[in-house]
């Protein structure tokens, strides 16, 4: 696993302007209020770790950031441009949404690789389709991405021929190849066997060191401590507590303390 994430070499200093900003977001499914007024700002180069009990709204919160989940109310701003509520005309709407999503990489709990395509074509699909790259350029770009996650020799393997850890690394390469400005991780290691978690976290930590802006929903508190610039504890649809690594050792809220005692 050599080479570097050249595309994200700049902008490593935290404290730069806000990249992604969610304000007063609300979301309910049926009668259940999943997100009850959450505001969260992600700055360039920042590594935000979201943790908390299951069903607390962590995934929904993350999925609002690329509008896979549409908030009921609130605003979403990315690089100063408001994407929700939508400002654009109905005709333009899909294009604007695509434009937002193509700049935000997402990695899912269950990988969601395309089973009918090999690793290489899992990565090239959006390069040729969204970025309009030529097949050859897309292939080179995909090869570079797969090399970065240590899978250059598995390019012609189908997802079913790869281990869980390898599949998740292909999924990371797929997101990375688009040169995203921020990467969202939705419990990326929760579906993995324990011995495979390390290889995925390793790739993520290296990404973080290279300066990639990241928002990670995870139960891996060791990872949170090593990588997180800001830790956000989400419970019952609100941010119950947020701060630096110190909230792991000296939580200010009883709910945070109870949760940490349960998982650590």
């Amino acid at each position, binding site marked *: 696993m050599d080479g570097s994430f050249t595309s994200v070499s700049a902008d490593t200093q935290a404290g730069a302007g806000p990249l992604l900003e969610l304000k007063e977001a609300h979301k309910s499914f049926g009668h259940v209020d999943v997100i009850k007024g959450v505001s969260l700002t992600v700055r360039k180069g920042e590594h935000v770790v979201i943790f908390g009990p299951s069903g607390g709204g962590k995934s929904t919160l993350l999925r609002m950031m690329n509008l*896979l989940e549409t908030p009921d109310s609130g605003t979403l701003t990315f690089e100063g441009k408001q994407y929700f509520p939508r400002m654009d005309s109905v005709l333009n709407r899909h294009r604007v949404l695509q434009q937002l999503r193509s700049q935000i*990489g997402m990695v899912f709990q269950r990988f969601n690789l*395309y089973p009918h395509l*090999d690793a*290489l074509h899992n990565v090239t699909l959006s390069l040729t389709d969204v970025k309009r790259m030529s097949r050859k350029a897309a292939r080179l770009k995909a090869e570079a991405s797969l090399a970065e996650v240590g899978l250059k020799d598995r390019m012609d393997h189908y997802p079913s021929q790869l281990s869980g850890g390898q599949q998740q690394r292909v999924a990371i390469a797929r997101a990375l190849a688009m040169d995203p400005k921020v990467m969202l991780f939705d419990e990326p290691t929760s579906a993995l066997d324990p011995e495979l978690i390390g290889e995925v976290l390793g790739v993520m930590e290296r990404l973080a060191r290279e300066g990639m802006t990241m928002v990670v929903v995870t139960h891996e508190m060791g990872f949170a401590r090593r990588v997180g610039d800001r830790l956000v504890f989400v419970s019952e649809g609100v941010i119950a507590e947020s701060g630096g690594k110190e909230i792991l050792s000296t939580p200010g809220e009883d709910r945070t303390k109870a949760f940490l005692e349960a998982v650590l």
Partner: protein
Amino acid sequence: MSWNPTDYQFAWNVVWQYRFWLLEGTLLTLKIAAVSMTLAMIFALPLALLRMSRLRFLSGVAMIYIAVLRAIPLLVFILWMYFGVTLVTGLQVDAFGAGVICLTLQYSAWLAEIYRAGLQAIDKGQREAALSTGLSQSRAFAKVIWPQAWRIIIPPLASNFIGIIKDSSLVGVIGLNELMRQAQIADSLSFRPFELFTAAMVIYIVLALIISPLASLVERRAARSLSVQTRRATRTRRSLGAAA
């Protein structure tokens, strides 16, 4: 005049005698089935998508259409399409067109439900992954959802193609000389129903038996087209590697 079954003497040479009649009928049967199946396969896709629409009105319309068209007895449908339309409007309807329309409409309703089952079998995470990389809804469907659903759909499509071949025998009632009607006409001239209908049956069975390996071939090709892509990619990589 009474007919004693034990007196019946089989005379299979009648089949040979009417071989060109049966062949002509077979060709028309295949033509009707192929045209109707192709149209039904095309028409079923928008129908399935409408049925899956989140808009209640659209999915409701599709649901009613599917329910009604599946329920109509095909024979009555064909009679109405051919004679009924003429009775009501005074327009002369083309028999081939009427037969194809009926088969197409009824089979599009069956196929729409097969498509829906295939499409719904695909994990919604697939669509989300595609959308999250910036693919449009339609591209996500064309490049990610449909290729996976297609493989699930092929085997039941083959069953329906066999079904449409056999159901096409019903269009004989509006004067189309497909296989079954050709056998009937030959019988009315030769008074040899068992030989001729047995011959027709054997032809239907052979046609059905040909479909299965054809379907497996299509299925394999769906898989192989992907591995060809991969091989091509591998070759290019090698040559790129050699150049570097």
